[in-house]
């Protein structure tokens, strides 16, 4: 269970996230949508504890991110925006480091490493430095470190950004597969992704919650006929038009 209660974050005079409340239960994949600058990444950072909220709070399986940050973070896997990683490390070193910090026992570390490497097709680049990787492999290395400890909750900030269509398909399959018993929040501005992987969609604009509905419910708001993806697109534009911010 991931819960946001009245999350608010100000940067000086700018209110990036404004009194945002929602909760996500295991089995749900929440698509977090919004125009650029709507506060998606800031919300991800508040939920994962990289930023502290100005008001309100975030909880992961009952652990408050401020009061019990270690427990809250232990049950969370996080792919930050842009999939940052230490450039001079190899993929293997990155995963070994994350495994050690997360306290995985050596035997489990081996099992999980084999699993994520197989699942994300990282075998050919395992001993290459991250700085030499293509965008697709980088993103997958970032995903690998997020799911390495098999966390019950995942926060993925634009997980398919920079992937080619085949890789996108692979990652969406992986998300759907993991969704069975996990809480997953995916931020994206690719609307077709909502229909493909999400069970629920939240749209924010200007830091405020605009809509919390199923992808089908969202599509229905377009009030037109046609494929779901197109209707989601139309509904999104109708809901967020004029709310974009630099």
């Amino acid at each position, binding site marked *: 269970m991931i819960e946001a209660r009245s999350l608010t974050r100000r940067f000086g005079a700018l209110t990036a996230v404004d009194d945002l409340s929602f909760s996500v239960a295991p089995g749900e994949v929440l698509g977090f949508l919004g125009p650029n600058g709507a506060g998606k990444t800031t919300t991800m950072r508040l939920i*994962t*504890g*990289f930023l502290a909220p100005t008001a309100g709070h975030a909880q992961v399986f009952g652990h408050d991110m401020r009061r019990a940050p270690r*427990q809250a973070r232990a049950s969370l896997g*996080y792919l930050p925006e842009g999939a*940052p990683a230490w450039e001079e490390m190899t993929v293997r070193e990155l995963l070994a480091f994350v495994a050690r*910090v997360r306290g995985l026992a050596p035997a489990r570390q081996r099992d999980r490493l084999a699993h994520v490497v197989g699942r994300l097709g990282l075998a050919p680049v395992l001993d290459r430095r991250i700085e030499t990787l293509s965008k697709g492999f980088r993103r997958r290395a970032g995903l690998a470190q997020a799911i390495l400890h098999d966390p019950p909750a995942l926060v993925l900030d634009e997980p398919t950004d920079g992937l080619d269509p085949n890789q996108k398909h692979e990652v969406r399959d992986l998300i759907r597969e993991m969704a069975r018993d996990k809480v997953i929040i995916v931020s994206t501005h690719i609307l077709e992704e909502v229909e493909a992987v999400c069970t629920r969609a939240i749209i924010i604009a200007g830091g405020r919650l605009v809509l919390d509905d199923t992808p089908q419910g969202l599509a229905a708001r377009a009030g037109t006929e046609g494929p779901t993806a197109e209707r989601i697109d139309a509904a999104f534009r109708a809901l967020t038009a004029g709310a974009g911010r630099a």
Partner: protein
Amino acid sequence: MFRREFAAYFATPVAAVFLSVFLVLAAALPFQLGRFYEQGQADLATFFAFHPWLYLFFVPAVAMRLWAEERKAGTLELLLTLPLTTAQAVVGKFLAAWAFVGLALALTFPMWVTVNYLGEPDNGAILAAYAGSILMAGGLLAVGSCLSAVTRSQVVAYVLSVAVGLVLLLAGHDLVLSAVRTWAPVWLVESVAAMSFLTHFQAVARGVLDLADLLYFLLTIALWLAATTIVLDRGRSR
């Protein structure tokens, strides 16, 4: 944390360049400027006398990347969302950097071999001076760690660290102290001197490893590392 950081130094040519230049200067300065041979003494006093000034430029170079780089590359977000406390990350990074500087210092051992070959130095005193030297390096490194957390620019971090380091060293230098002595009461002069890295290092470099000097450096390190933690945690809520 320590292992990742320490290994990171050797993943790029930076470590090799740093170690080579440091060793060349650490050896050349005493010979060229310090008349190491002409003194006709088998000790390392001249060698250690250059350390504060050598560190003033080298240690900030090691420290500048500690946090500024993480911030710029976005890996700070990865690091600070792992189940580590900020303090653990700060201490882990600091210890790795300290070990790296310690390695540079340890590689100056041919100087020690040389004086032992040429004469019979007081090896206890040399050991104490080495201890003082690494402690002072730790102090400057902790200062650099904190200033590196303030900015995302490594150049800014470097310049700030050299400036603060200079103040901390000069506060114990005779030039500054005699200037202060002309108008200030003795207790003030004493306290300015007591604040300085130089005063404490020179005490240790003479071969006397005093508990007070040891505590001074350890406390300095602890305070600046605590400040680093505060700066990083404040960054989350600002």
